[in-house]
Structure formats: structure tokens, C-alpha cells
């Protein structure tokens, strides 16, 4: 997904409603508090950092395929940034960079 598309999704409020408790894949950038699942793919894009650099930083902080993730908190303005539980750690990230992280969300029954 291109960055522009992702940012559109952040801007459009209805897109924010989607993945709470709904099974299926989606981007971390549009996840709401309570959403949890497993990281399926980390694929960075060029932004403030070149894509390969962003990807490695995300990986180094623990955003790696297979890690369990849960959205814990969100900021006041534009629900940004977000705080997530990432396996045993807690990490804060802006939604902009979170768009590089694809999640397979748990279905409600599992959660």
C-alpha cells in the first residue's frame, strides 16, 4: 500500500472504525484501542526515513513478523500516536510509521 493511500485512510474517520475485534488483516495505522493480533508483515515505505532504514528500526524495536501486538492507548489529537503492547514490551509509535505494519487481527471469539 502506498503511503498516500495510508494517510488518506488516517484522514478518513470511517476507516478508523474498521478492525476492532474483526478478524482479518489490516494495517496497524488504522487499528483502534483494544485491537489485537499478530504481526503478519513489516514492509516500510519511504518517508521521514528511507524505507530500508525504517524497516530495520521497526525490526530492532521488536516489530517483527509473528510478534503479538495489542493497541493499548491512543493520543488525543487525531488518535495519534498509539501505544502498543509488543510481546513483553510496550512501544509508542506514530500512526504514520505504523502503516508499515500489517496485522492479522484476532477474531472476537479468540480475543
Amino acid at each position, binding site marked *: 500500500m502506498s503511503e498516500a493511500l495510508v494517510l488518506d485512510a488516517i484522514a478518513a474517520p470511517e476507516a478508523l472504525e474498521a478492525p476492532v475485534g474483526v478478524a482479518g488483516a489490516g494495517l496497524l495505522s488504522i487499528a483502534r484501542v483494544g485491537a489485537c493480533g499478530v504481526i503478519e508483515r513489516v514492509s516500510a515505505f519511504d*518517508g521521514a526515513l528511507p524505507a530500508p532504514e525504517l524497516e530495520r528500526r521497526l525490526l530492532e524495536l521488536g516489530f517483527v513478523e509473528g510478534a503479538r501486538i495489542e493497541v493499548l492507548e491512543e493520543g*488525543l489529537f487525531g488518535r495519534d500516536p498509539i501505544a502498543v503492547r509488543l510481546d513483553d514490551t510496550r512501544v*509508542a509509535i506514530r500512526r504514520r510509521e505504523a502503516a508499515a505494519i500489517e496485522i492479522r487481527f484476532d477474531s472476537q471469539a479468540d480475543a
Partner: protein
Amino acid sequence: MTDTTLAPTRLALVGNPNTGKTALFNALTGSRQKVANYAGVTVERKEGVLTSPSGRVIHVLDLPGTYSLRARSPDEAVTRDAVLGRLAGETPPDVIVCVADATNLRLVLRLALELKQVGRPFVLALNMFDIAQRQGLRIDLEGLSREIGAPIVTTVATRKRGIEDLVLQAEALADSMPAGENVWHEPSAAEIRAAHGEAQRIMKAHVRPAERPDTWTSRIDRVLLHPVGGLLILSTVMFVMFQAVFAWATPVADLIEAGFVGLGGLVATVTPDGLLRSLLVDGLIAGVGSVLVFLPQILTVFFFILLLEDSGYMARAAFLMDRIMGSAGLHGRAFIPLLSSHACAIPGVMAARVIDQKHDRLTTILIAPLMTCSARIPVYTLIIGALIPRTTVWGFLNLQGLVMFGLYAAGILSGLLVAFVIRTLFWRTASEPFMMELPTYRWPDPENVLRNLWQRGMIFINRAGRIILPLMVLVWVLSTFPYPPEGATGPAIDYSFAGMIGHFIQPLLAPIGFNWQMSIALVPGMAAREVAVAALGTVYAVGDVEGAGQVALASILQTQWSLATGLSFLAWYVFAPQCVATLGVVKRETNGWLWPTVMFSYMFALAYLASLATYRGTVALGWG
């Protein structure tokens, strides 16, 4: 083993942030520490010494925290280069101590795997082992040690447990294990993924998850990170900190100031009138006093910062402020330095250390002096009191208060604007994404806090003082020499270099409505902003500006300054870099004269433009 001529051994501490590295460093070296800068970079170099039970001298280097040897910031580059033995002017460490938070092993295991590639002997210190035990975390130490190929020591840095064992293991490694081949290279994304997989496998095999994991952090976060409640709590915390600076630090600062004035008076009575007395009293004693007077504020601000950092709240504050600061291109962590700058830019500039990324930090330092510091208050009060009528506008607002508020707002807004301009014009690509770990909440350790506070104070006195004091003496020389000729009638300063400079730059300042008295007062006013009030008193020859003198000065200004001139002077003080102490600290913090020069120039340019616009605008409105 107990040779009398054992060569000193060098240890280097490496680890993720928030693993208790600083606490471990303190536990190892106690008070035998030295803080300096690495050559050529602004990264702090902390080294300490200890003597092992076998009598060996051990040097310990505390390296900046990192998640990877792949350096992303100047701090992390130091860590990488030190570990690889590439750091100019440094002897490579004999043994690396990899510090890990035992309750949070996954990320550090990946770092340990990277360290293994370096080939230098290393020992893994599983710190916070008390918490791990409390949580019922089961770690197979032997298995883990075999997998990573390094001995493991469990430690509780804050209780000084496991320290002797750590030293023993490090010594054994230094004696037995030669450095192997370095096969480290910057890992690619694929290699990081593979290392994660490996770390995951090791975790599965040797670490049984906590039986009673910490649930407090999540519970506290639900309150402290609440979108609205969290911001309210943060405002409260900041309000308390701000209050403390004024309620605790200012009286002490006043006391120090009074003490030095008293000392000056005492010295004046025992020295003959003349140059020596003036040098001692007005130059040296006043100069030393002007350095020490900042200490209470610095210590108060850092006391709060250390509590916030060690408890884990600092990362939350950055989280809450990130969006607001981010709109000006600043990092969330810039919030606290900028708030501190409202007390005084000096602790603010020093506090910018909490920002890792170089450009984020420099931007914050550059705009810190635009925040309205307490030294501007005497200047503002004098001018507002003299020239702004005490009327009520819109039924309830006091005009004088409104102007004061406007000056504060002008400082903040211009600061954010300057940051925005810097980030959009100059350092566009360098803007860091905000990504950080939110550490587990912990009780700050009093000993650690006090030790680090002591260190901050000493750094300020030793390093910044060495710059501030000579600059103060320079300002004194400028305002004292040469002496007025025999039978001169004007104030002595009029004949000094300061007077000459004042007269010289007066044509330059005429367009912004400054008369020659103001131009002269600006020169000694460089020592500190509030000195300008005293300097105006001197040039208008009212003598002591305390008490009655202040009233006298205000009434002189009332008759001699137009409203336009007064407003122009206020605008000047919002922006002008009228404080050599700040410039000195910026020099110390950025390790060179480049950034103080940039700061000085841009602030003067802004001050001139703002005063010009204010003066011309007011005159055009017919209030000249």
C-alpha cells in the same frame, strides 16, 4: 593471579535503554566517576574506576543505550565504535558487559547475538533480577549461557547485588579469553529477522514466562496515558515542577546572590578604593556569584527530570506531547526542556539531553532562549510599569497583565515558529519518526537520583562555569575601562568601552527607537537580562535601583521614553540573546562555537526586526 603488576582492565557497559545500566555503573564504580565529552562529538563520556578484590584496577566505560550496533544517532555511533574498538583516542575494551533487563530479554538477546559477532569477550549481566524473581520468571541460566556463548551473572544494581560476581567473571574473561575474530557487519533487514527468530528460539528453550507478570504498568498507563486525563495530569506535574523552581529555587538563588553581594561588600571594606577592589567585587565575586546563582534552578529542574526519567514517566510525557510538539517539527521530548526554559534557558538547554537525535536536540536548544525566562521579568515589569497605563480593557482585563501575557505568548509562538522554519527549511529530511519503548514503571532509587543530580551540578560548575566566568569578567572590563576623565560629569559608564560601543551602535539602533542610554545599557545587559535594569539605573544616574531607585527610574523612563520606544525595547527583550551565560552553556552542550554563534545571530536578527516592526507600527498608529 595476584600479581602485583596486573594491567588495568577495561570494561564497557552496553545495553538497551532502561535496563538499569546507569544504576549498574554507579554500583560498580561508586563515586569514582568522571564525566567528559568524546572528542569531536557532543556525546557524554562516563568513565569510572574500581579496584577488584584481587587488586586489579578496572576502568568502566558507560556507553549510550542502544538496541543495535547499527548506529542511528551520534550516541549510538559512540557505542558501536567503542565496542568495535574504532573510537579515536580510546583503548578498546577488554571485556564487554551486556546489561539486560531480566524481565524483558527478547530485544537484548538480539543485541547479544550481535555482540557475539564482534568477537570480543563479553558477559551478560541479567539485571533487575529481583523483579524477575518476584514475577516468578524462570530462566535456565546455564542453557542461556551456552546458547549465547558468554557467562551470565544475575544482578540487582540498585541493591548492589551480584556486583562482585560480575567483576570476578569479567576478570576471568580478561585473563583467559583472547579477543576473537570480528565478523560483525551492519545487519540487513533479513539478518535482523533471522536474529529475532534465533532470539525467539532461545527464549522458548530457556525462559519460562513470568507466573505473575507486572500488571501495574498497564493499569497506571490507563490513567496516565488517557487522552484527556493524561494531559491534565501532565499539566499538573509540570505546574508543580514550575512552582518548585520558583518556590524552592528562586529563594535559594536570591540567597546566593545576596551572599555574594554581602561578600562583595565585605571585600570592598578591606580593599582600597580603585581598580583592585572593582576587579574583585564587580568582576570576580559578582562573576562567580552569577555562575552559582543558576545552580538552584538547575538542580531543581534536574531533580524533576531524573524522577520522571527513572520512574518511566518521561517516555509517557513525550507520548502525550508528541502530536503538539510535532506540529512544530519538534520531538515530544522537547517539551520538558522548553518548559524548563521558562525558568531559565540554562537548565532548559542542559535538559535537551533527553532528546537523542542530534537535529531534534539542536532545534530545541536553539529555541530554548526564546521562552520567557525569569530574568526577563524585572525588565518587563519596569517597562510595563513605567509606560503601559494601568487601565482595564474589555471590562475585566488589566492592560498591564495583558501585555505581560502577550510577551510570554510571543516567546512561545516565536519559538515554535522558528522550530518549524528550521525543520522545514534546513533539516527537513532529518525529522525523526517518534518510536520509543515505554518502560515499565519503577520506583526511582534515591541514591541514583542524588548521584546523578550531583553530577549535573558539578558539570555545570566545572565546564559551563569555566566559560561563563571569563565572559562575565569581559563584560565587567568593557563597562569599567577606560575611566572617565578628571572632572567628568556624566555617568562613568558613558566613558567606558561599553559607552563607546553603545554610542557606536546607536545609529544602528536609532531606527528601532533606542536612545543612547538604552544602547549603552545593552552592553552590560549582556551579562544577564536583569542587569539591564541596573545598567539603565547607572546611565540615568539614579544609583541603586532597588526600592526607591526603581520608582525613580520608572518615572524617568516615563518622561524620557515614548510608548513606541518602550514597546520596542520590550520586543527586543523577547528575542535578543542578552545572556552570555546561556551562550556559554550552549557552547558547552554543543561542543563548539558554531551553534552559539548561530543562536546569537538569528536572535539578534529577530530582535531587530521585531523591534523595528513594533516601533514603526506604534509610531504609525500615532503613539510615537
